[in-house]
């Protein structure tokens, strides 16, 4: 990838990784798909939980897994329009 990804795109990639895998996605899978460092991914996941895009749960073994909320699905659906608007006004 030549061009540096912006925050909007990183969030998009994380949410897409969760959606493609279905519900209850492990952080290792998101890490592999999103191409971020572990620390960066954890920061983004906390932000996405705070914004209500994903929820954190425990699987049968008690390990952390993540699922999209309706708001997360909305973000993926409206991503092109959100990016167009935010880029137009330099709001990101």
């Amino acid at each position: 990838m030549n061009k540096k990804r912006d925050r909007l795109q990183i969030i998009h990639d994380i949410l897409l990784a969760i959606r493609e895998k279905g519900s209850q996605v492990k952080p290792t899978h998101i890490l592999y798909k999103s191409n971020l460092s572990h620390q960066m991914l954890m920061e983004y996941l906390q932000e996405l939980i705070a914004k209500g895009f994903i929820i954190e749960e425990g699987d049968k073994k008690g390990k952390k897994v993540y699922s999209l909320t309706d708001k997360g699905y909305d973000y993926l659906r409206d991503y092109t329009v959100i990016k167009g608007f935010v880029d137009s006004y330099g709001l990101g």
Partner: protein
Amino acid sequence: MVYTHLSPAWFFGYDVLLEISFAVVSLIIALFAFKIYKSSAIKQVHLFGLSFLLISISYIIQSILNFMIISKLNENVSKMIKLQSIVHLNTLGFLIHMFFMIIGLSILLYTTFKTENRKLFWLLIVVSLLLLFLSRDAPNIFYLIVSVYLFFISFHFIGNYRRNRQPKTLLIALAFLLLLFGNTHFIFILNHNLFYPIGHILELFAYILILWNFYLVRKK
């Protein structure tokens, strides 16, 4: 306090129509920004929507008051009563218009700083309002503050275009440059009343560009 802005007689009515158009475009952008905020949860987008909502309210008030002035001009009463009511309406309308416009632009300017410093936010608003309402020449101070704010806002949008060379960013940079030129024209309205329609027409072109950008953003 008596505020006057000189509009040529032939422009009566057209100014009201233009101000309604600016209000509608600003409202569309504000509502769209709130919709984008709902999906993205980006705080700056929320503030941006709020700023356009306040700008829209300022235009709505200006257009209503200008419409009422035109109605008063056509009333069949004595010239003295007519003049008094027009001066009162004009002063009241202009004060409310200035209040909402200054707060709206202060918020828009704040969003371009990309900071979460609340003290800076309140400082911008308080200083702007104090300057405006303690001044003996509020209309000129108002257009001066608006022009300074628009200068910095335009600077942000030009920088945004240079970083992100797309038609959409170019439209917004040009729109805000036109708004800047339009407002600097208003500073000179006391010298020549032709500056008033010129300012409005420049603003019209600016809002057409903003609307064009809105169309491009929505087009998938």
